[in-house]
């Protein structure tokens, strides 16, 4: 499992020094930026926390409880979906497809509907936390449930036992390291999901306080909240890593091998099935919750808004402009995040001694709520594309780093022995052996990062830049233009799904060349 490597005394000292240096740098930067109202110093953060321990504790308890409930429910849903896909293999494409579509649904659209369905209380927070985690658990889990040599299943079958025994005795246990890897990625996501859920109208919690602090220009409070949120997310990540080492001390044979690439015709059929299932779910949800047609638009409403209504042309034009603005941020941010994640993973292989501190920094970066970092990054990089692109890259970078590190460690020992015998340098090994071995994990991460990137860009557009699809969705919700909102939701979701499919296509081509065994 990739977590903070347990440091020996030497590295521990170095880690302490690095942490102190980072804190000192933070303090100095904050003091230099006092007039800009974007960054509070660690001393101010501590001061605020010391002055408001009760408020902080109550908010943390609320958000943590909701995040934990969402974490459990979301992961249980992932387990159930994985079991369904496993016991009914023909349904896998459908399950993963619909799961992807639901995962891509923008919070701006789902939040208010969840609030209407659940009313006051923690319902939307818990559901949004669950929605934030189930997909990133489902995908590694599906891989893990198949991550066993065929002979283990032969063994089970040779005693006359079927799929159920194979699941209980082989798959469940073989999937455990993959499950834990998924849970590790899920922990910070659940926390952020619960925070964003509070934006739908909550009495208390970290999200409520964050909005209050940002509006109130209370920079120490803002950063105290961000620091606590980051610390919680990091602790959850590290704790799950420790749990993983206890439960499954052996590294999994391979973290994320992609599912077999379907033949083109099969792919089209699966896509059609997913579309049909999505439409059925859409109509079904409106009927099941008896949602009011004023804000819950049906597929026919959206089709009419886009195609037959009098202002369909104007709607399409608005969406087109927003899509172009979003794509301009999305693509560079996504690619930069992938490059940074894979690049850092390789750098860490070349210089393993800095892995501990770098991983800590990476987890921290991933865990800081976007709402807090956005103004700082905008200040540093300006209001142009650079800021948004950077925020998207941050969201993409972390899962890529984790997956690539797993992948880089997959290199079979014997191959490395051969490289030893040629006295190959670290760089040669990296280029000749490790990178090809990393490719499957890299592409799996690249696929999973697509929805994360879309989510990031729309959230930043919504909360900070006021452009693109994210902003359009927020605006149309506030102006009750739910036809436009749902058209934008369909567009955003389709965009995610298409990007996902495009990455899968590239993946299949690259792996055919470098790792053909992954495709069978």
């Amino acid at each position, binding site marked *: 499992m990739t977590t903070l490597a347990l440091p020996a005394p030497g590295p521990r000292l170095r880690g302490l020094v690095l942490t102190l240096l980072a804190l000192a740098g933070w303090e100095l930067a904050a003091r230099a930026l006092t007039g800009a109202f974007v960054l509070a110093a660690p001393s101010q953060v501590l001061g605020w926390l010391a002055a408001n321990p009760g408020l902080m504790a109550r908010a943390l308890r609320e958000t943590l409880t909701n995040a934990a409930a969402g974490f459990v429910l979301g992961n249980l849903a992932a387990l159930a979906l994985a079991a369904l896909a496993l016991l009914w293999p023909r349904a896998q494409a459908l399950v993963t497809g619909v799961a992807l579509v639901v995962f891509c649904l923008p919070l701006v659209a789902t939040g208010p509907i969840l609030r209407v369905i659940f009313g006051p209380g923690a319902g939307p927070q818990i559901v949004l936390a669950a929605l934030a985690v189930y997909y990133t658990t489902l995908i590694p889990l599906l891989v893990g449930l198949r991550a066993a040599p065929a*002979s283990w299943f*032969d063994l*089970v*079958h*040779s005693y*006359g*036992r079927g799929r159920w025994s194979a699941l209980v005795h082989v798959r469940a246990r073989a999937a455990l390291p993959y499950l834990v890897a998924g849970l590790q990625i899920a922990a910070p996501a659940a926390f952020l999901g619960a925070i964003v859920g509070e934006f739908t109208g909550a009495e208390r919690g970290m999200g409520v306080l964050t909005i209050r602090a940002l509006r109130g220009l209370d920079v120490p409070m803002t950063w105290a909240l961000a620091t606590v949120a980051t610390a919680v997310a990091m602790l959850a990540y590290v704790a799950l890593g420790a749990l993983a080492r206890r439960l499954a001390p*052996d590294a999994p044979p391979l973290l994320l091998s992609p599912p077999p690439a379907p033949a083109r015709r099969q792919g089209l059929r699966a896509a059609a099935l997913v579309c049909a299932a999505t439409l059925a779910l859409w109509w079904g949800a409106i009927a099941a919750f008896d949602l009011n047609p004023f804000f819950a638009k049906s597929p026919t409403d959206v089709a009419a808004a886009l195609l037959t209504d009098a202002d369909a042309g104007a709607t399409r034009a608005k969406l087109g402009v927003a899509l172009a603005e979003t794509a301009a941020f999305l693509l560079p941010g996504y690619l930069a995040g992938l490059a940074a994640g894979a690049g850092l993973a390789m750098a860490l292989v070349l210089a393993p001694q800095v892995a501990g501190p770098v991983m800590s920094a990476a987890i921290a970066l991933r865990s800081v709520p976007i709402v807090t970092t956005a103004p700082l990054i905008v200040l540093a990089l300006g209001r142009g594309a650079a800021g948004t692109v950077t925020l998207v890259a941050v969201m993409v970078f972390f899962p890529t780093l984790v997956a690539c590190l797993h992948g880089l460690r997959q290199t079979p020992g014997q191959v490395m022995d051969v490289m030893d015998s040629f006295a190959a340098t670290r760089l040669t090994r990296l280029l000749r052996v490790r990178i090809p071995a990393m490719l499957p994990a890299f592409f799996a991460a690249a696929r999973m990062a697509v929805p994360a990137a879309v989510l990031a860009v729309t959230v930043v557009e919504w909360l900070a830049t006021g452009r693109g699809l994210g902003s359009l969705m927020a605006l149309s919700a506030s102006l009750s233009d739910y036809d436009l909102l749902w058209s934008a939701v369909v567009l955003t979701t389709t965009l995610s799904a298409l990007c996902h499919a495009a990455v899968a296509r590239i993946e299949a081509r690259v792996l055919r060349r470098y790792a053909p065994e992954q495709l069978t």
Partner: protein
Amino acid sequence: MAAERTDPPAVICRAVAKTFAGGTEAVRPLDLRLEPGQTTALVGPSGCGKSTLLRMIAGLEPPTSGSIEIGGAPPAETLRRADLSVAFQDPSLLPWRSVRGNIALALSLARRPADARAIDELIALVGLEGFGDTRPAQLSGGMRQRAAIARALVTEPRLLLLDEPFGAVDELTRQQLAQDLPRLWEARGTTTVLVTHSVTEAVMLSDRILVLSPRPAAIVADIAIDLPRPRAPGDARTDAFAALTDAVHEALSQGMARAEPPLAAQ
């Protein structure tokens, strides 16, 4: 242990053939009768299809055509009663279970009661005393194969299928096992099929050797091994033993010569 013991079954293959999805012909239509309680060795060059034949008998792979009967019933029935065990080429030990845990798993899969004493006896028989609680990752390749053999034996199967189970076992242990195992399955009354490419091993262990041609597998010779039991490592130096190994080698080369196209060097 099994509640009721029945006699070891005969295995009858009628015109059994296997062609894989890609068009590779692994086994030509083949007729075969393995006598109850006998040990039959399938000998042939690597990749000749003998493992495929074994898997078909085990019921893990359906034949493309023809039928298989075990004790008068299809393999699925034997599977259902958990009346057979397979020791695979790859030991296939679950890495998260100890040696003892892996052996116990077979009992549990076969719906037999847990029997700690039987497990310990088998661990001793395969020379793994003191390693009962060790995880497979800490064992050598040969030790893992021995654990897999113990696992195959623990359910007291009526039909035992061994797919090159001694590949990684060191010479000394292999000789010891070659002495001990036949005694065990003779006492229990087991029909045994042994896939191997070691001629000496085949002669030492079996009652009958079927020599297979290179792929697609066809029987080129059916040689009865009428050496007295129990056999000892020293027997390998006897003339009778030498004559039998010669006969097997002869049949193997004939099979190779017949093969088209010639097989690449092993």
